[in-house]
């Protein structure tokens, strides 16, 4: 319980953007877990008697052209969309850690080669490449799709991680570990990677967002397996059933809105991570600031003045009081005499 409370307290100190994003993402995760269980109908059940009906008590979000329940499709499709996004994000991040950290750590000719590789993947246009590759793919199930998407999405993270590793490998503690005769893999795993967790997290969030939007777009064009339910395949069927021309908004608005909100939650988390590392990017409305604070900050601020950064007052620390030795330290140094 105490642990939970501390987690909540830490959450409250995050930038408001990240907090909003995390709460939204948690909502979608919950939906992905319980969605298929609480779906009122089988999403594939065809019932011509109720074809293309607007929202009603029997079908809260209406029905498709063949009488399938839109709400059930939405609830079932969330899992596929989120899982594929996370899987592609994870594969791509693993690739970028492997390539980026290796390049930065080894330096020299290996670095030249790996940087060339990631730069090439960075400039090759992703969507056309994806369309061409998935167009020729015979198995369009979720896993091959996730792999193909992650192949086009890893290079950005690799570049950032390489730069960070380059700057870390010359630090004192890494040099000390080398002197102590630590093996290379140990230095990488225990000295370097733990110091790059923030960058890895941000690159994971970014790649997942990229993967979800790409997956939905590919499904919408019909280049993935559209017989499984995902938000992208819902949009594909809606487009094929001319939902637009008929004006059946309940068919294509819900999946599109869900993708947009899911994407927005990831984008907000990433903004929050950016703001954590550069507080100047925060808006005036910093968390924890009351209205008076905000008004004062606005009044005092001039374009050339240092940017006002309103920190929230940290909540009283539940942890034990600092060690007494620390408090006595200044006394010890006075005049060099105890």
């Amino acid at each position, binding site marked *: 319980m105490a642990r939970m409370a501390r987690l909540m307290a830490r959450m409250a100190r995050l930038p408001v953007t990240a907090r909003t994003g995390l709460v939204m993402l948690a909502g979608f995760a919950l939906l992905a877990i319980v969605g298929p269980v609480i779906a009122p109908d089988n999403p594939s059940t065809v019932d011509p008697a109720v074809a293309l009906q607007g929202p009603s008590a029997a079908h809260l979000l209406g029905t498709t052209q063949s009488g399938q329940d839109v709400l059930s499709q939405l609830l079932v499709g969330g899992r596929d969309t989120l899982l594929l996004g996370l899987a592609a994000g994870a594969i791509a991040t693993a690739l970028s850690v492997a390539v980026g950290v290796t390049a930065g750590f080894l330096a020299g000719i290996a670095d030249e080669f790996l940087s060339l590789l990631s730069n090439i993947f960075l*400039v090759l246009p992703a969507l056309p490449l994806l369309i061409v590759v998935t167009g020729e793919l015979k198995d369009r199930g979720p896993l091959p799709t996730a792999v193909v998407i992650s192949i086009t999405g890893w290079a950005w993270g690799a570049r950032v991680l390489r730069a960070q590793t380059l700057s870390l490998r010359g630090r004192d503690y890494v040099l000390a570990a080398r002197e102590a005769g630590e093996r290379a893999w140990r230095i990488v795993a225990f000295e370097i990677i733990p110091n790059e967790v923030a960058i890895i997290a941000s690159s994971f969030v970014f790649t997942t967002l990229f993967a979800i939007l790409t997956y939905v*777009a590919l499904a919408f064009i019909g280049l993935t397996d559209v017989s499984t339910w995902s938000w992208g395949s819902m949009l594909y069927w809606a487009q094929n059933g001319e939902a637009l021309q008929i004006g059946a908004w309940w068919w294509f608005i819900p999946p599109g809105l869900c993708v947009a909100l*899911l994407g927005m939650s990831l984008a907000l988390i990433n903004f929050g991570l950016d703001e954590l590392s550069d507080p100047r990017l925060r808006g005036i409305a910093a968390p924890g600031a009351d209205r008076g604070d905000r008004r004062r900050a606005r009044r005092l601020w001039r*374009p050339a003045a240092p940017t006002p950064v309103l920190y929230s007052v940290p909540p009283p620390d539940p942890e034990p009081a600092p060690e007494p030795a620390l408090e006595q330290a200044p006394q010890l140094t006075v005049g060099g005499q105890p």
Partner: protein
Amino acid sequence: MRFMARRLAFYLAAGWVAVTLNFLIPRLMPGNPVEILISRFPGQLSGSATRALTAAFGLASRQNLVQQYLTYVGNLAHGNLGLSITYYPSTVASVVRESLPWTLVLVGLSTVASFTLGTLIGILVAWRRSRWMDGLLPLTTFLAAVPYFFLALVAITVFAVTLHWLPASGGYDLGQQVSFSASFILSAGQHAILPAITIVASSIAGWMLGMRNVMITTMSADYVLTAQAKGLSGRRVMFAYAARNAILPNVSGFALALGFVVGGAFLTEYVFSYPGIGYVLLQAVSNDDYPLMQGIFLIISLSVLAANLLADACYVLLDPRIRRQG
């Protein structure tokens, strides 16, 4: 100059990878374009026609992979991209030549509009950091996270299907002949408004946010303070001192965006059935038209590479620090 030489070498390498990928992808995948073509025209192709086609697609069975590769590169050097299956017997080059102008005009103009507007708004938002301006951020985040085609679908429903203000699809009225007459240009313009607006709406947030963030960093620099202390007008300080230095990343981003103009609008063209290059690529995919797919992918990759080179050149021109390093 050493900087540019290094970059040029890199783009040559990247270009070679694009060409080679293009050669390898269809050969690594199962299926053979000639078989597909034969199955599309059952009983209409004689044995000699099949052999001629096999040669035309560079798939003559006598050749090993290296010889095929050399033939392929030789054909490319002569601008010979092969024959399209979807639009048989047109060549890939002529199909591309017909569809490219549509994409260039539509996506090019919207990219310029989006860059100009987004950068201006970004400058203003950073300069006067009032609360409602920062309140714009969540809204633009939402717009950036909306899948583009969804935005387009909603726009079609509202403005074309419900309000009947603008046409929902196509590049021009079907009754029109493609020409430079006033009525044709008017019709094409009408059809371009809705796609253009959706492109701008979905891409403006990126320019705005990028400009805002760099601008905020620049504004705390000493030379901005000095400019204000000299008593220069606020507008002068904002544009000539702060924005001028903050715009660098956006300008190089713009050069990159120009590269994506050629291939960046598949979803627009798909949703609006706009007769550009993205629409043709999707046609090619749904018809298993490998030569056309490859040709378009190659053109897109090469133009992206060219735009990257342009972006680097911009940086060298705008930022003296890179020149000195070089």
